[in-house]
């Protein structure tokens, strides 16, 4: 029997929309000119580029399409937002940056780079569902703060952040606000003017656009220094011949994201609820990381920790059954470290190990979700039978973190006892 194939990793990337793909095709072999050229091949391309720019500007309600800078992806956009803004404003505004503790690595590592080059960084903690408290951001701002960087939605646990409230504070204090919208774009409406942010970035491959293209919105009030040096493309802020086909595809993806937003959100939110209800009904000792499905959670993801088993094994067995998911377990990461997001929400190490991220898309179906629930429940049984922790829990040697029975020691204590070192 042929296995069902279910892609549940839409927070990592999505397939390109048919319409976006078709729109891109002529720009590879027919309209292949560079928009910088003055001949008809170049001029022909400019028009398409302008149209795409407009569509993307509309998607986030930017004042003008001139406020967009196209880059190679979300990571470059985040680098440019942080390092470009810091460079341009260090003398006039100061050398202090405020970030949340659970930003994407593109933001975290850009900020870390700056901290090695004369900048001071304050990390604002989050609560146990991963929410940033705007007051904490306000308290972290000093007279030397140049920039506050917070994301709209967390990439791992799906928490929606109070960016508008944070923007009120930064506006009052005269500090620029950069919002990383990577995990949000396409899955919730974004209005840069309503939010009150000066910088915002995202990449269209998260909402059915192509890879290799990122967007940075920059209000005219926010100055950014170029970090890729060369010609004067993108208003001189990002050199290099534009990735024309990708920008064209991004424009179409943005257009559809706006047009189909309500429908897509309603569909994936329904699936998210069904997946959540199904998993919690069929699997014991399972914990949701981040907010419950609803107003505080992005509509398309679930981040769960299943106790007594490890995440990579779950991922591999699911993949074997045709289901593609992600995991924040240390065994999955190349550094063997648990995701910094899971550490920041103070998730017990044992639970961080059993972490799985499922993110839904517009093409997933109710049948997909039911298949995932059924398969996942079987996989958990298989892995628990293999896990020494499960039997030791049943025998009362170790206790559950999720639903403590009061018998036995903690997993972390047990791991420390047998390895001689703490599990962290």
């Amino acid at each position, binding site marked *: 029997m042929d*296995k069902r*194939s279910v892609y549940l990793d839409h927070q990592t990337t999505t397939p390109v929309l048919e319409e976006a793909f078709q729109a891109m095709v002529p720009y590879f072999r027919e309209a292949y000119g560079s928009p910088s050229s003055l001949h008809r091949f170049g001029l022909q391309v400019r028009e398409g580029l302008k149209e795409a720019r407009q569509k993307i500007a509309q998607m986030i309600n930017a004042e003008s399409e001139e406020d967009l800078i196209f880059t190679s992806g979300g990571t470059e956009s985040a680098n440019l937002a942080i390092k470009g803004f810091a460079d341009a404003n260090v003398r006039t505004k100061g050398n202090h940056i405020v970030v949340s503790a659970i930003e994407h690595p593109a933001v975290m590592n850009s900020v870390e780079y700056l901290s090695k080059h004369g900048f001071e960084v304050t990390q604002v903690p989050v609560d146990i569902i991963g929410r940033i408290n705007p007051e904490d951001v306000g308290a972290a701002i000093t007279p030397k703060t140049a920039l506050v960087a917070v994301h709209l939605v967390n990439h791992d646990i799906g928490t929606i952040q109070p960016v508008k409230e944070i923007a009120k504070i930064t506006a009052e204090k005269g500090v620029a606000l950069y919002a990383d919208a990577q995990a949000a774009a396409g899955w919730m409406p974004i209005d840069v003017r309503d939010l009150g942010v000066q910088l915002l970035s995202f990449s269209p491959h998260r909402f059915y656009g192509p890879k290799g293209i990122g967007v940075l919105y920059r209000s005219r009030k926010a100055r950014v220094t170029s970090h890729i040096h060369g010609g004067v493309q993108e208003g001189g802020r990002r050199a290099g011949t534009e990735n024309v086909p990708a920008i064209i595809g991004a424009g179409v993806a943005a257009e559809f994201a706006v047009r189909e937003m309500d429908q897509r959100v309603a569909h994936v939110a329904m699936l998210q609820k069904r997946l959540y209800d199904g998993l919690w009904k069929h699997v014991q000792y399972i914990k949701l990381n981040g907010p419950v499905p609803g107003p505080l959670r992005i509509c398309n993801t679930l981040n769960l920790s299943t106790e*007594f*088993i*490890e995440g*990579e*094994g779950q991922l*591999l*067995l699911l*993949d*074997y059954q*045709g289901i593609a998911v992600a995991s924040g*377990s*240390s*065994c*999955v990461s*190349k550094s*063997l470290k*648990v995701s910094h997001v899971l550490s920041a929400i103070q998730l017990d*190490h*044992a639970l961080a*190990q059993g972490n799985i991220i499922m993110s839904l898309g517009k093409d997933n179906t109710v049948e997909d979700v039911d298949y995932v629930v059924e398969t996942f429940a079987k996989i958990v049984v298989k892995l628990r*039978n*293999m*896990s*020494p*922790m499960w*039997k030791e829990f049943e025998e009362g040697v170790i206790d559950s973190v999720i639903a403590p029975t009061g018998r036995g020691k903690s997993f972390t204590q*047990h*791991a*420390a006892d*047998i*390895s*001689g*070192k703490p*599990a*962290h």
Partner: protein
Amino acid sequence: MKETKEYTLYNDTVMDHFLNPRNMGDVEQADGVGEVGAAACGDIMKISLKIRDGKIEDARFKTFGCGSAIASSSMATELIKGRTLEEAKNFSNQEVVDALGGLPPVKIHCSVLAEEALKAAIEDYEAKQPKVALATA
């Protein structure tokens, strides 16, 4: 591009031992049990042994860990069955890696866990011996 089904994270031998682990479980009334944890990633492996006349008659494992750790414990228990205690004491994780046809560099420590669990089980067995000797004397 191949069919996506054909792409796997580990090679076929590792995948086979991960999907169809050999010797999974606990030896009943084991003569030696070793449970160890990996400081690197926090995973846990347990090996239990049945020992007869200085030989490993049966070996079983339980693992809380990644695919490579599960495959390593499956392969390690296969390899050591029938070996003498002296042979088993010289067992090295490299043998597991070789028998599995190689592991990704970041996953070598998972095979070390198998070596350590086996050695802990032998130590446990040997620590119990004087008592057994007294009881039967």
